[in-house]
């Protein structure tokens, strides 16, 4: 069932991804085609306006030039009829307005209109001067009533109308057109685009609806997509955490098992001695002839007593080892809590004594920390076991004659932190190795000896406890690893110093 729903989910994710990939181009296409459609219809409307203006020019040319007053009156009349929705003005060349529409509202509406007005006028002037218009105008307009020239369609279409049209047509934008209607007069007309093309608002509205629908779908799909991605991330990080936990656990086991192998050996020796001593006692007791001689019996009893003392001593040695082990096992708490790093240091040191002894390494413990650290004791223990094992490995290659083999485990207080360092007198390591020492699978040990994970895991564990693991190394002098952990703040030491002294004694 989960399989089914998850495959459905994957399909939805795929669909949303495809949609998101297409949404951008679709939206762009919608906007561009919408704009060009509106512009197309708008330019049809402009054509009408343009022709109206040319009509004015033709009509004006046909009026009697001698009656200036009445000519302007007729012009005003026809302007009113031709541009009922727009505003217009007629200006004299080099002078002011001669005629002006009653409804200059549109002019007020656009603050940039003056500039556009000037631009349109200048355009109309230069257009009129730059072609044959003047000559034709003179030829046609010079003779009143001669409409032959005006009736020619070619001439009509060639009357230059200067336009200022917004590049993206919106209903509230103004359209400017200017034309020179005679030598002395220029006509400028401006119109709301929306008035020329009444359905422009609707057209834009349609474009808007399509764009909005696309945007809304895009939003929905990106929600689907991001939730899917988030889920994948969460799943992946959970998986990684699980894997990390496994690696840490494996390292803990291997660190422990190395130590336990050493300890088993450590226990083996006293057990051998005890077995042999017991066997010796049996040997003595098996001696039949001794029983008859009291003097020999006394000697034998003394022998037996000596054996018993040895057995006891060796038994106590075993007990100490098992107690240490039990204490270690009890400290395996993986939650952050105040932890006495001095005790952990001493435990690990005493459990490492066997291996250190076999390598003739001198173990020195210097516990100066007075504040407990806030960390998971199991982690601190694991880190210290790793560091200790590394330090002993490092000393294996050091010739005894050259340098004293020594590992110093030191704890001390820092500013808000507690530090635990493990220093060996090994060969140290070069800078290149030091830089990579915390990388997973990096190892300086021969193949088959180290996994290269001990320090990487120790580093990760230190970070997990809000601490830090650093290394200092001088070639030929030794290496020091320092574990820094946050100290438990403003809290007196949970176990008093005397107990600690008692433990070490």
């Amino acid at each position, binding site marked *: 069932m989960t399989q089914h729903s998850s495959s459905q989910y994957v399909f939805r994710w795929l669909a949303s991804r495809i949609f998101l990939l297409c949404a951008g181009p679709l939206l762009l296409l919608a906007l561009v085609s919408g704009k060009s459609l509106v512009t197309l219809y708008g330019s049809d409307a402009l054509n009408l306006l343009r022709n109206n203006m040319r009509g004015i020019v033709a009509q004006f040319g046909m009026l009697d030039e001698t009656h200036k007053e009445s000519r302007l009156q007729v012009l005003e009349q026809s302007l009113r009829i031709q541009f009922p929705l727009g505003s217009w003005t007629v200006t004299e060349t080099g002078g002011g307005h001669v005629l002006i529409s009653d409804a200059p509202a549109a002019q007020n509406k656009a603050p940039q209109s003056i500039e556009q007005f000037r631009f349109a006028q200048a355009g109309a002037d230069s257009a009129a001067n730059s072609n044959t218009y003047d000559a034709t105008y003179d030829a046609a307009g010079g003779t009143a009533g001669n409409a032959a020239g005006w009736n020619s369609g070619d001439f009509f279409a060639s009357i230059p109308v200067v336009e200022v049209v917004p590049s993206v047509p919106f209903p509230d934008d103004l359209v400017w057109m200017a034309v020179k209607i005679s030598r002395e007069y220029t006509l400028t007309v401006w119109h709301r685009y929306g008035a020329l093309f009444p359905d422009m608002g609707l057209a834009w509205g349609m474009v808007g609806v399509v764009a909005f629908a696309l945007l809304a779908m895009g939003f929905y799909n990106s929600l689907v997509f991001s939730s899917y991605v988030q889920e994948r991330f969460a799943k992946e990080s959970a998986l990684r955490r699980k894997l990390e936990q496994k690696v840490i656990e494996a390292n803990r086991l291997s660190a422990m098992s190395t130590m336990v*192998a*050493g300890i*088993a*050996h450590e226990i*083996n*020796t006293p*057990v*051998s*001695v005890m*077995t*042999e*001593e017991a*066997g*010796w006692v049996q*040997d003595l007791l098996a001696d039949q002839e001794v029983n008859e001689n009291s003097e020999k019996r006394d000697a034998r009893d003394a022998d037996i007593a000596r*054996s018993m003392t*040895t057995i006891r*001593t*060796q038994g106590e040695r075993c007990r100490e080892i098992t107690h240490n082990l039990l204490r270690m096992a009890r400290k395996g708490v993986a939650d952050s809590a105040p932890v006495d790093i001095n005790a952990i240091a001493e435990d690990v040191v005493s459990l490492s004594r066997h291996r250190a*002894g*076999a*390598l*003739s390494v001198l173990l020195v413990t210097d516990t100066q920390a007075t504040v407990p650290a806030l960390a998971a004791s199991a982690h601190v223990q694991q880190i210290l076991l790793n560091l200790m094992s590394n330090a002993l490995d490092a000393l294996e290659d050091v010739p*005894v004659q050259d340098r004293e083999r020594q590992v110093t485990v030191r704890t001390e207080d820092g500013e808000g932190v507690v530090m635990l360092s493990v220093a060996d007198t090994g060969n140290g390591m070069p800078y290149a190795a030091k830089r990579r020492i915390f990388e997973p699978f990096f190892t300086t040990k021969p193949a088959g000896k180290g996994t290269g994970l001990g320090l990487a895991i120790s580093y990760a564990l230190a970070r997990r406890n809000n601490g830090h693991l650093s290394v200092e190394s001088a070639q030929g002098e030794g290496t020091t690893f320092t574990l820094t952990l946050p100290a438990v703040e403003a809290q007196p030491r949970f176990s008093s110093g005397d107990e600690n002294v008692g433990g070490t004694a």
Partner: protein
Amino acid sequence: MTNAQRLHVLLVDDEPDFLSVIARRLERRECTVVTAESGVAALEILEKQPVDVVILDVKMPEMDGIETLRRIRSGFPETEVIMLTGHADLDVAISGMALGAYDYLLKPTDIDELMFKVRDAAKRQ
């Protein structure tokens, strides 16, 4: 008969308690036992007096059992060596066999078995 003769055994181990008790028990089984607490001491003793069998602990500080074995085999080829080992060093003991040790025994060992091996080794000699 060789059985009537006392066997000369050199016992090498870094644990004094172990040395003393094994020595006592071997003495009781018609052996003359010399003890050494390190490989170096063992070699010194071998220089001075001939020994039939060496019982050698594998794990010792300074000169370990394998190194001692190598030197005994090269310096005193007549002497047979029996290795004593804990479980953890079983591989070492087996590699010791390749170096010419007569046999190996796991600690803690049964004294009669040890005695048996010592006699066998002495016979081979």
